[in-house]
């Protein structure tokens, strides 16, 4: 019974819960049991919600009393630890916040509670979302369920791995330069970064304010769309929150899943983010997907985005600059760690000692880099110039979207790499984000869906799809069609190919 429950998608769970064929308590218990079973290997969770079962029971009671509940009431959910929660500690993967309890809930968490989703726990991440592998988590890395020797991606490796390992049907993530999409790519799952401002950032611990966006991840397109509908919409606590009335993403996904073909869809392939430098299996997966799209009637357009080659550089100026300021609040005064140097010291000494002890090497590296980029005398050359590159990249996208309805690329240059492979050279780790960064710089929606398994290592390969700002529904529609076509071709959904027992020492 339990293993059947965890195989269900969020949409399927919701249907059974609504029909009272399944209780929220059983659904929650099945996932908690799965976590007990596999998380000592996967290590996706930093904290488990001790109120999960009682929350589920309350939902069951309300349903039994005839109360009309939301579509997803009783479905379990994993929450990235970047989001503050009142009933579980929030650390953002950092020692400096170890054990910290927030007195308020992030808006997206509050909305999930209001929709009667059941938070199972908080998922691991690179410290303050700085990284592409979870190797920068102060609490140790999460491991890829497809191969426990490989990284689960980052920063949201915990959420992606939890979903891939059937520990939760869907999860909340955050994406500053690919932190939802790249983990989806390496774990064979779906991850969606909404249009900047579509989802509230209130209560999402800021990395880079002008790039951060909260979004869903899951095993299917529809499940992400369902969660997207719960969390999206204006929030007066976030001044960058859009006031748009959004169409239902779930409706778009369902519509896409029913579509017969992709006739009339213009699909742009960006020259600058694919090709020679990419791993063979990634290129093969992308090529196969292109064939599939052509067969489905889509028109393929080659897109030249000349400024994309400056995207990584601009990103690694803007992000550290904003992060250096955002992380200044971790100073030992109001919350979090306090380290007093031997023999006491002034408040300045205490702050400096605390930040030295509480931040990991990647966080320090980026704070120092960001402080440099903003320093007097360097602002125009670095931060100022990076903001201009941002304009140029937006213009590249504007031009591209006159020729294509969506853009596609491989989600990342490689499949899941091995632990330690890129930690020695920060620059190499940064270049791993080359495909995902442009969407954040421009604020447009982008997602990753699993499309293939690389022949050489048996690891999943994702396809990135990008659309103009505010056309989030377009991505759900098209990706749902592609997902259905892939499922028809393979005879099973992609997630069914994931190893049921997290694989040690190789997926093959």
């Amino acid at each position, binding site marked *: 019974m339990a293993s059947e429950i965890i195989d269900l998608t969020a949409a399927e769970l919701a249907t059974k819960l609504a029909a009272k064929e399944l209780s929220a308590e059983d659904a929650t218990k099945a996932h908690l049991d799965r976590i007990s079973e596999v998380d000592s290997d996967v290590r996706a969770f930093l904290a488990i919600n001790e109120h999960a079962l009682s929350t589920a029971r309350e939902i069951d009671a309300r349903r039994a009393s005839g109360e009309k509940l939301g579509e997803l009431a009783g479905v379990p959910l994993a929450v990235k630890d970047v*989001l*503050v929660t009142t009933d579980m500690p*929030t650390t*953002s993967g950092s020692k400096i*916040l170890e054990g*910290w309890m*927030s*007195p*308020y809930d*992030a808006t997206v968490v509050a909305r999930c509670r209001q929709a009667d989703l059941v938070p199972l726990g908080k998922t691991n991440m690179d410290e303050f979302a700085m990284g592409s592998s979870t190797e920068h988590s102060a609490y140790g890395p999460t491991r890829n369920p497809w191969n426990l020797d490989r990284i689960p991606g980052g920063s949201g490796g915990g959420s992606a791995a939890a979903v891939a390992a059937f520990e939760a049907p869907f999860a909340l993530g955050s994406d500053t330069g690919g932190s939802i999409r790249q983990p989806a790519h390496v774990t064979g799952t779906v991850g969606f970064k909404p249009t900047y401002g579509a989802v509230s*950032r*209130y*209560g*999402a*611990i*800021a990395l*880079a*304010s*002008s790039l951060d966006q909260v979004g869903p991840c899951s095993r299917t397109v529809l499940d992400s769309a369902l969660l997207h509908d719960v969390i999206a919409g204006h929030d*007066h*606590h*976030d*001044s*960058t929150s859009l006031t748009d009335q959004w169409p239902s993403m779930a409706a778009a996904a369902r519509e896409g899943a029913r579509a017969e073909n992709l006739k009339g869809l213009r699909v742009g392939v960006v020259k600058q983010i694919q090709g020679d430098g990419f791993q063979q299996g990634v290129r093969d997966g992308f090529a196969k997907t292109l064939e599939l799209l052509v067969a489905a009637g889509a028109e393929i357009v080659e897109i030249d985005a000349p400024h994309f080659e400056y995207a990584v550089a601009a990103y690694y100026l803007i992000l550290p*600059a*904003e992060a*250096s*300021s955002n992380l*200044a*609040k*971790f*100073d030992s*005064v*109001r*919350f979090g760690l306090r380290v007093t140097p031997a023999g006491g010291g002034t*408040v*300045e000494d205490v*702050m400096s000692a605390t930040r030295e002890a509480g931040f990991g090497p990647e966080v320090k590296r980026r704070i120092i880099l960001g*402080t440099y980029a*903003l*320093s*007097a005398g360097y*602002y125009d050359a670095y*931060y100022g110039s990076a903001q201009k590159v941002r304009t140029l990249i937006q213009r590249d996208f504007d031009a591209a979207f006159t020729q294509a309805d969506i853009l596609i690329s491989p989600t990342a240059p490689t499949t899941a790499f091995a632990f330690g492979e890129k930690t020695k050279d920060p620059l190499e780790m940064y270049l791993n984000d080359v495909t995902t960064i442009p969407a954040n710089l421009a604020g447009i929606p982008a997602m990753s869906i699993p499309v293939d398994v690389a022949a050489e290592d048996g690891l999943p390969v994702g396809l990135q799809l990008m659309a103009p700002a505010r056309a989030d529904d377009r991505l759900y529609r098209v990706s749902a069609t592609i997902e259905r076509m892939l499922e028809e071709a393979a005879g099973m959904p992609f997630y069914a190919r994931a190893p049921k027992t997290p694989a040690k020492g190789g997926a093959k």
Partner: protein
Amino acid sequence: MSKAKLMDFEKALELFEPVIGLEVHVELNTKTKMFSSAPNEFGSEPNTNLTPVCLGLPGSLPVVNAQAVRYSISLGLALGCEISPSSVFARKNYFYPDMAKNYQISQYDKPIAENGSVEIELANGRVVHVPIERAHMEEDAGKLTHVGGSTGRIQGAEYSLVDYNRAGVPLVEIVTRPVFGGEADTPAIASAYVSTIRDIVIALGISDARMDRGNLRCDANVSLRPRGTEKLGTRTETKNVNSLRSVERAVRYEIQRQAAILADGGSILQETRHWHEDTGATSAGRPKSDADDYRYFPEPDLAPVEPSRELIEELRAQLPEHPTLRRRRLKAEWGFSDLEFQDIVNSGLLTEVETTVAIGVEPQAARKWWTGEIARIANERGVDAGSLITPANLAKVVALVDEGTLNDKLARVVIGAVIDGEGEPSAIVQARGLAIVSDDGALIEAIDAALASQPDVLEKIREGKVQAAGAVIGAVMKAMGGQADAARVRELVLERASQ
């Protein structure tokens, strides 16, 4: 601290031309803070006027208070500034424990208001136009209390306590351009300027403007240049100047201090200095240097402020009368002589007098009490007179005089008691038994006794030498402990003497 060497003020002016620049911070009296919905209230229990935003809690985000923007635009307009069609918030990054985020949200290269001018009028009748460079919106910091050590000051303290209630209170910082040509009037220009800003924000109703509570704070930049030279001298910035009186004193002090150093061949250190009301001196603070790298950048959590032309015009139409025009009008309405009116303006008590008159007090009486007894006490204690007593309480005292319950001497006692927090005027009169004796029987008894003991005086009065009655009146007033109406006593003395 060692006492600095000062040059005689007149001598300093002979050798140097003083140039000042003033930065005035105005706390707005909105209901909530600049970027959070926490109450903007003075005097609450520590750390109770907070939302996650004020504490810089992880994940929290600022949202701009619409009312604070409207107030800032109104203030910009009242300062004769242009309102920027697009102004931008920026982060000023530096670590200090009273600042929850370790950056202050302020405005940098795109302030809301620029290029204004404020007309001020000095006691000697001189009119000066102070050029305004900019006015920008920002947030206040929390409050530190230093514990341990001998003085309660920052030096020598063992630890400090932080209350973030004030953190995030809306501020407008008004920055002047350098003010040249003030010469001997320079200190007076500084205080008249701050006084005019105070009048403006009170008239706009956008600030409580109480300097003693820090609603209005002034930093004074002072520099000297030798006569006949062009280049501006190195300036110091004196902070913590928290009364109109100390603005004038601090500027004067800095001119004298800097002149002494320069005349000795020394050079001025560009630094922050602190004004000490008690010693009437400034002391060195943080040296200003290139190390002050605030790493300003546009605040990514906030959108630009782009007020519509309609909004600006609507606010312009609602602007109150300019303080200078208001002065001319009030002087005419109250029928005061130049001297009488200047007396009020110089004391910075125009608003207090106006409010008191508005309650129904005769202008002369309002002037007399504010610029007399209340100003005297304020002077004695080194505080602003306006902070001592409310116009309403003064009006109650004056009413007690008018109805004959108090004479001037007793009224002074009551005012002193109100200032010392003994309660309402009528309650004080009751509690202290201060009312004058209006019972003629008691007075007559005392008069008869006095006349009996001074038969020669009685004789003189009867001979028509009325001025001789003074001795009897004095004796009676003494016997009554001052609690009698001297005029009535005089009447009764003449009456009894003629019998």
